[in-house]
């Protein structure tokens, strides 16, 4: 997800009107830098974070003068939104909004491509209001203004607004496809006193798999890696997919579906998963698994590690040999429970016997053992 001011820059490059904003980076002089450069008040100070629900958490503050702005900036930089401090604060003129609208373009499997959603009343969580108008576009070049006009007919009575929204939606859909965006949401889309539409907010999510052809996305992924700790960064460099959870049984797993099934089973057996960690997109070798163990061994929340891999393309004798190497070099004494199955699993017992490990035939047995060990460790 892009920060609001980055998203607005993208919109502006596509000819969409956005407020003239000032981006303030954190630092000792942040408040002074902002108030020195703002001339007209009131202004909006907006926390730049990569999670939703900012407005409800007090992430947008109206400031009537430079003292109020300085205080707002200090306060925003000291607050966590969705677990993270703002990377910047965006200061914009407070808009005289006549009506708030909602407009988004997003990838939707049901549409075989993009859908456009429009609500004549924006500014709120779109799920909390009446269902928005929905135009299933498909591939971006399939956008037809007359089709969207038909969809909007019963949703937007003001024909001037309707036509402006349609033109905007067409531009957004093209922009999304061109820049590999999976979502562009403008909420609110502001109808100003002069009748013009302006993007008062921008939530843009880009497709990280397009990094090979989009330098911005590649750069953003690199930046995201720099924001996390060294051990997690080592895992991300191996393409592991990691989501931290609040339990104590860590998973080293293969395949998103099986990882979630194992998480669910841990809960079913009375345990609590410490993470979702899918190692299958990266190298399923010692090189790939080593950083996973390094991270989990160093995590004080993790009491037990459950290795659960059911491989097709991943061959189990290779995974077993990697485990042998890692167990030999590992210093941590946290217990590890194994359940390998899949291609060449018949070769696993012979390899495991070389370092005294046991491979559970059923996931149920492995999960039960892990839950038992986690309870014993408390």
């Amino acid at each position, binding site marked *: 997800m892009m920060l609001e001011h980055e998203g607005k820059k993208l919109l502006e490059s596509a000819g969409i009107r956005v407020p003239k904003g000032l981006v303030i980076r954190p630092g000792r002089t942040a408040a002074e830098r902002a108030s020195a450069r703002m001339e007209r008040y009131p202004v909006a100070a907006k926390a730049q974070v990569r999670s939703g629900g900012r407005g409800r958490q007090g992430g947008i503050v109206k400031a009537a003068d430079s003292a109020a702005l300085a205080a707002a900036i200090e306060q925003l930089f000291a607050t966590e939104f969705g677990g993270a401090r703002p990377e910047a604060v965006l200061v914009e003129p407070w808009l005289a909004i006549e009506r708030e609208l909602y407009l988004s373009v997003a990838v939707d*499997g049901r549409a075989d491509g993009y859908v456009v959603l429009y609500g004549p009343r924006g500014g709120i969580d779109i799920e909390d209001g009446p269902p928005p108008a929905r135009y299933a576009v498909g591939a971006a070049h399939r956008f037809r203004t007359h089709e969207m006009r038909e969809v909007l007919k019963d949703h937007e009575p003001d024909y001037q607004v309707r036509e402006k929204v349609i033109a905007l939606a067409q531009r957004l859909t093209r922009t999304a496809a061109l820049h590999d965006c999976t979502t562009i949401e403008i909420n609110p889309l502001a109808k100003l006193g002069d009748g013009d539409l302006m993007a008062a907010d921008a939530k843009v999510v880009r497709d990280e798999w397009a990094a090979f052809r989009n330098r911005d996305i590649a750069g953003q992924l690199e930046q995201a890696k720099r924001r996390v700790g060294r051990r997690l960064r080592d895992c991300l460099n191996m393409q592991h997919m990691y989501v931290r959870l609040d339990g104590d049984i860590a998973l080293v797993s293969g395949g998103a579906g099986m990882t979630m099934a194992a998480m669910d089973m841990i809960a079913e057996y009375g345990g609590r998963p410490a993470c979702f960690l899918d190692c299958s997109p990266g190298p399923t070798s010692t090189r790939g698994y080593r950083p996973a163990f390094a991270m989990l061994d160093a995590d004080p929340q993790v009491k037990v590690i459950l290795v659960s891999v059911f491989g097709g393309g991943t061959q189990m004798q290779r995974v077993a040999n990697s485990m042998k190497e890692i167990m030999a070099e590992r210093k941590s004494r946290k217990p590890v429970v194994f359940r390998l199955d899949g291609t060449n699993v018949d070769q696993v017992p012979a390899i495991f016997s070389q370092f005294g490990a046991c491979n559970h035939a059923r996931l149920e047995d492995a999960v039960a053992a892990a839950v038992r060990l986690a309870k014993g460790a408390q």
Partner: protein
Amino acid sequence: MSILLDRTNRVLIQGITGQMGTFFVEDARKYGTQIVAGISPGREGARVGDVPVFGSVRAAREATAADTAIVFVPPAAVLGATLEAIESGCRLVVATADELPVQDTIEIRAAAKLHGAAFVGPNTPGLISPGKAKLGFMPSFCYSPGSVGVISRSGSLSYECCKRLTLAGIGQSTVVGIGGDPVKGTTAAEALELFHRDPETSAVLYLGEIGGTEEIFVAEYAARGDAKPVAALIVGHTAPPGKKMGHAAALIDSKAESHAAKVAMLRVAGVHVVGGLSGVVKTMQAALSPNMSAVHGATA
């Protein structure tokens, strides 16, 4: 019968000279798949084992009458390779690659529709019609021939569930990995329709997860008067909202995409919802039992 794949498919492999392609030739042949050609531009005239290598899909089709393609090329080359296979007349194209930009899937799906080809993928192990042929890298020992059609958003989860069915004596007609991405070459709705028309398939097992909208179609199908019995396992009830769980589409972005909402919707539609992995066999048996067909929403 089966869907999409049986012994008659004549398969060409795009990217046959790569590691995955070479492994697949041997493994798929052992299973009975007819591998007739490989594609590797610039290496035409070579052979991988006894499989002839061609520079283009058109040349391979002319020489070998290949009608099915499986693509093992890097993500940046998948768009080109799949469009070539589709526009050269292949009736079934499988792309297993994960990390494919969704824009590319949108384009490939549109081309497949235009040319009347079936496209399976991306981000999938492929598909297998047990006892007949396999077109992907799933472990063969997990499967046995039978009458349950399986549709899965997750590869590894489908191996695990099919192995459980096989050990319990429940065979499968075809197992299709529709993949974990938001836009799919073959959707759950399309796979269900194919299984519905397949006389050899008597019931369907759907393996889904949190996030996305695919499960709506499963519920719509199950609610039909003439529907075959459907069992479903939805994983991720312990997944937090707003976080992407590996698969691009496995993200609870709205209330309707949560585990609880999907399970409730499927139950109302008459789907036999599996409580957890351990209940797959029992629930599938219930779905297959004619006496149980009137009992909706059986749990493990």
